[in-house]
């Protein structure tokens, strides 16, 4: 019964996203559509990074590296899968969807494994030290791609077709994946594991004294976070004709950190808002050309002065809304 209800809800949500896609494609220019897709990808990046930077209180500024692994991994696997799948199922939307999603999952798997490899040695460190190490690993990953000749080195990877990677990414897939990832990360955050991760952030010594396997949980959270960045990378790769190492420079990691700090570290709904904010504000200021980044930085400074805890702080949107609604009067016990 439960499974049936869940399946029904999931189908309804997917159907709604599918319906919205027609609206978006009919109502907006290509340019606006692209911003909407970028906003969706940012949401995935921000919610994933928030698990490690916000909930667990560790500081990674190297997530562009994991996004790169996901992007290259998905692009490469997608190209390899295309021929056998098309041979077996013919060409058509169903075959494309299958290739795309398998490729995204493969990208997530690669990114998750690299998250494990990076996380195991570096999560012994804390704070600034961890930040510097993740920054280093992020750059190492980018430079590896820059020199991998079978992935096109510095010119990037665009498959065997001269027209580049197939443009699988559309509104439906971006927001279906974003919805799924937000839901899964939300469930994880509000579970025993999530409580333990928060406990690690609040006081690692006390968490350890309460039998929390701190190292294992931190590495697991890091790998999950890297895997979500991998999905975002795969979606990003199939939005344009190819992936280039320079798409995953240090600035992209900083963008991700900005998203979650603007939204409020530790808040999932904050991460969603922050992801959208970064995508939209950067585009709105495109007319200002070279002053764009100056204004953007100023905007961030203003937000941090006015609301240093971010738009939502550590709370979730629904918690804030509940607080606004009138509280039920405390029950009074009748005195005899």
């Amino acid at each position, binding site marked *: 019964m*439960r499974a049936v209800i869940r399946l029904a809800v999931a189908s309804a949500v997917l159907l709604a996203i599918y319906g919205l896609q027609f609206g978006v494609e009919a109502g907006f220019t290509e340019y606006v559509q692209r911003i909407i897709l970028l906003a969706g990808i940012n949401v995935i990046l921000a919610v994933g990074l928030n698990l490690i930077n916000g909930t667990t209180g560790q500081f990674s500024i190297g997530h562009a590296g994991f996004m790169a692994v996901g992007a290259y991994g998905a692009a490469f696997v997608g190209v390899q899968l295309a021929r056998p799948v098309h041979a077996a199922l013919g060409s058509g939307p169903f075959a494309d969807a299958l290739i795309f999603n398998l490729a995204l999952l493969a990208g997530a798997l690669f990114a998750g494994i690299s998250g494990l490899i990076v996380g195991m040695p570096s999560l012994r460190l804390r704070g600034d030290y961890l930040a510097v190490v993740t920054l280093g690993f992020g750059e190492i990953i980018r430079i590896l791609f820059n020199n991998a000749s079978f992935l096109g080195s510095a010119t990037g990877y665009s498959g065997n077709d001269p027209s580049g990677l197939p443009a699988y990414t559309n509104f439906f897939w971006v927001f279906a994946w974003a919805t799924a990832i937000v839901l*899964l*990360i939300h*469930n*994880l955050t509000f*579970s*025993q*594991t*999530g*409580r*333990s991760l*928060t*406990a690690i952030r*609040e*006081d690692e*010594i*006390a*968490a*350890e*004294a*309460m*039998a*929390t*396997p*701190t190292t294992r949980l931190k590495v*697991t959270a890091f790998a*999950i976070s890297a895997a979500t960045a991998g999905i975002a990378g795969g979606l990003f790769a199939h939005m344009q004709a190819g992936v280039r190492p320079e798409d995953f420079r240090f600035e992209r990691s900083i963008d991700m950190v900005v998203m979650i700090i603007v939204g409020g570290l530790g808040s999932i709904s904050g991460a969603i808002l922050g992801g959208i904010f970064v995508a939209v504000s950067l585009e709105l200021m495109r007319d200002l050309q070279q002053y764009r980044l100056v204004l953007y930085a100023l905007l961030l400074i203003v937000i941090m002065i006015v609301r240093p805890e971010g738009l939502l702080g*550590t709370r979730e949107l629904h918690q804030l809304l509940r607080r606004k609604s009138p509280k039920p009067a405390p029950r009074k016990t009748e005195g005899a």
Partner: protein
Amino acid sequence: MSLLELHAVDKIFGGLHAVRAVSFQVEKGAIFGLIGPNGAGKTTLFNLITGVYTPEHGRISFAGKNIAGLKPALIAERGIARTFQNIRVFRTMTVAENVMVAGHHLHKASIAAAMLRTRSYERDEQALAKRAQELLEILGLAELAGEVAGSLPYGSQRRLEIARGLMLSPELLLLDEPAAGMNSQEARTLNEQIRFLRDQLGLTVILVEHNMAVVMNVCETIHVVDHGETIAEGSPAEIKVHPKVLAAYLGEEQPADEASS
């Protein structure tokens, strides 16, 4: 066989011999006091027992097995829970969540099960919440279950740490100055609660405390350390009049009436 046994334990920080050849035994079901002037090495002993520090020499055995050098999480899993002198509750989490954190052994569901909210996950989660509520009731915190832990008064935060420790289903509970910051009414309630833990839950308790009203009232055996070394061990009545203890607390040739206040 004693539940906890320290044998000639040494801990050295650089040039400071923080603990020197300390040995004691705590029998199952005892309420054991560990006292001494500030800086005597009491908290260091707790940190050695719970694995925060590894002793340079000596043996620490719990239920017959050596635990010196094990990681804190493993020692906690084996059944030693503790509270902290400088309160370490998880400040942004609610009171109930604080307690639930220590319930790993009751929560077997995997991370994937948590993400998918499977039935077995929800069963574990409910069992955990129920257990947490029971423990909060024992410590008189049930009404505060939904409050943010950091907003509680000190006394309540200290009791919350005890409730959290109990969630581990420990055999041995180490309390590091549980009465600090409590008024005399709260301290009296604490005495009752410590006895309740021993009598009703079968716990063994080691207490580090400066509040002599609590120590002398509730402990059966008291071990006194000063400058990292054992200076006395005995019943409260013996300790109250022990010349070395009086000297350590009050200095030589001082009137002795403050030792029992």
